[in-house]
């Protein structure tokens, strides 16, 4: 196991692109602590897979260094780095049994027979695949196959980290829950560094202790699920995390208050220091928008109410601006509605970046 340090990594897919300043990965400088569970989250084309391939050794970055503990591994191959990887589509050896699949990496490393048998038996139990042990791997379901690919990494004691490349893509929703919770339990037992690439916010947030949100070749925020939810540092994070994403409303500064669609809103916390000329936006999550009787907040028109089972999503318009609110199942909606924003949950953005306010959060 190891701490993985990415030292000012930049990557372009060809020298010409680099010269033109066209980097797939603009600059990443970050350390993954030993034994942590991390997620790389972002839309396709944001550079998360490029970054994963740089960590695993399938790609050598154009600039910067990758270090495992204090060892520079920038130019080493995946096998020399002792990395295990679980791919989007399960990779199993069709002609082998489940047991042989798990024993394969150990046999290749000339581990003694008795030791192989002991570790494979142990792994079968942990993966809850005992009853499948002597079946050919090709007949199994997708989630069982994914467990085998994971098991082949876990069974080795020398693995520095396990990387996951959207591993739940081909798994049915019900099995996703089970597989994900088993994955978390395994992480706790083995305390191995795990890095999980996904575009699915729920997967990222539930799996990881720390989520690395990427956008357009850059890391825009690294934080715990709570930090990403409560204080998105970039409007993109607010939009990307949460369903529906954060409401981002253009506004103007007016002393200690902001003006949204003609309405003045006082800001909790200290005075915001924004550069003049910056594009100012107000961020508020739908979870913190309440739908109240006219008079109790900013007057708004309800356009549509979506019943999503456990709650309802209200799509409203505040002036010309679309605002979403999440409302509990049984709560009645007023005919003449107004929106009330929870003051502590308001975030202010200048040119898409969070404005840190003196005095902190109320």
């Amino acid at each position, binding site marked *: 196991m190891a701490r993985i340090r990415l030292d000012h990594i930049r990557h372009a897919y060809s020298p010409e692109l680099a010269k033109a300043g066209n980097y797939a990965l603009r600059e990443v400088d970050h350390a993954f602590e030993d034994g942590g569970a991390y997620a790389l989250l972002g839309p396709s084309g944001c550079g998360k897979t490029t970054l994963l391939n740089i960590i695993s050794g*399938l790609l050598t970055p154009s600039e910067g260094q990758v270090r495992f503990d204090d060892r520079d591994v920038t130019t080493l*191959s*995946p*096998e020399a780095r002792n*990395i*295990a*990887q679980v*791919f*989007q*589509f399960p*990779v199993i*050896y*069709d*002609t*082998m049994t489940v047991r042989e699949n798990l024993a*394969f*990496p150990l046999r*290749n*490393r000339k581990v003694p027979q008795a030791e192989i048998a002991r570790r494979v038996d142990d792994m079968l139990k942990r993966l809850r695949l005992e009853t499948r042990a002597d079946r*050919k791997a*090709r*007949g199994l379901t997708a989630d069982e196959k994914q467990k085998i*690919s994971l098991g*082949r*990494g876990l069974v080795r004691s020398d693995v520095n980290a396990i990387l996951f490349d959207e591993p739940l893509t081909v798994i049915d929703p019900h099995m996703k829950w089970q597989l994900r919770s088993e994955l978390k339990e395994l992480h706790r037992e083995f305390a191995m560094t795990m890095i999980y690439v996904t575009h699915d916010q729920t997967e990222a947030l539930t799996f990881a202790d720390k989520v690395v949100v990427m956008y357009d070749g850059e890391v825009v925020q690294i934080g715990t699920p709570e930090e990403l939810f409560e204080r998105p540092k970039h409007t993109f994070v607010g939009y990307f995390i949460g369903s529906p994403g954060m409401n981002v409303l253009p506004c103007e500064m007016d002393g200690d208050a902001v003006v949204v669609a003609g309405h003045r809103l006082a800001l909790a916390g200290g005075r915001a220091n924004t550069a003049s000329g910056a594009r100012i936006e107000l961020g508020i999550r739908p979870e913190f928008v309440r739908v109240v009787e006219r008079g109790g907040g900013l007057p708004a028109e309800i356009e549509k109410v979506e019943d999503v089972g456990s709650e309802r999503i209200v799509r409203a318009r505040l002036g010309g601006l679309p605002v979403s609110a999440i409302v509990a199942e049984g709560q009645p909606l007023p005919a003449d509605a107004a929106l009330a924003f929870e003051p502590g949950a308001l975030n202010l953005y200048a040119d898409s970046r969070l404005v840190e306010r003196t005095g902190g959060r109320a």
Partner: protein
Amino acid sequence: MEKTWNNKAWFFVLPVLLLVAFSAVIPLMTVVNYSVQDTFGNNEFFWAGTDWFTELLGSARFHDALIRNLVFSAIILAIEVPLGILVALAMPKKGIWVSVCLVLMALPLLIPWNVVGTIWQVFGRTDIGLLGYSMRALGIDYNYVQDPIDAWVTVIVMDVWHWTSLVVLLCYAGLVSIPDAYYQAAKIDGASRWAVFRYIQLPKMGRVLLIAVLLRFMDSFMIYTEPFVVTGGGPGNSTTFLSIDLVKMAVGQFDLGPAAAMSLVYFLIILLLSWVFYTVMENAGRDRAVKETAE
């Protein structure tokens, strides 16, 4: 339950049925007809019953030719399949060299059988052929006209040269369809080159290999043109395969009855052996096929 069946489709199949009838079924029936009769020309026929079959199946000439065929096919498969796999593995997977290699591989396949025979016939001649002459110059006693072993070697080398690329192309098609993730996973698992071949490439090539083996078996079992052009079945009878014998009998000796009986037996043997090959290999690949359709 009421259902309106649309039978129009049969009209579209009709021309094909007629074509097959004229090109395959009717000639085959003629052969069956000949095989149970005796003729001395002039369109006079005498009923011979199963005489020709009994005679044929007991004849040493037939046995020898059959054994020659089997040995030949076995040698051809033993050389061309592993060689084909090796060449396919060695071929590049990306870049401009892919098309260069593919064209080079396809070249021998484009040359007609008799031309291949003629090329090698000249190539191997000891007086003017490059191969024959050089061999002689090197002090190796090589003469396919007189030495049975030299004749066999020549025919086999010729077939390998002509047909290995078919196996190569089929295997290559199987290889390029394997996703990169498999190779990456194998690297990460620390698999040796051999293990990658044994557990990833070979299983994934299974189905195309089946086709390659079947094609090469049937083709080599029916070999005719090359030995006919190069050795004419000699020296002696050493390269007289079933097909050559058949032609000798039918055209050379005008023994139409026995020749017809022989061609029927020949046909049945090919059918039977192909079926055996197919069943054995299909069973080996059965579960894999099931899995692939399930996904």
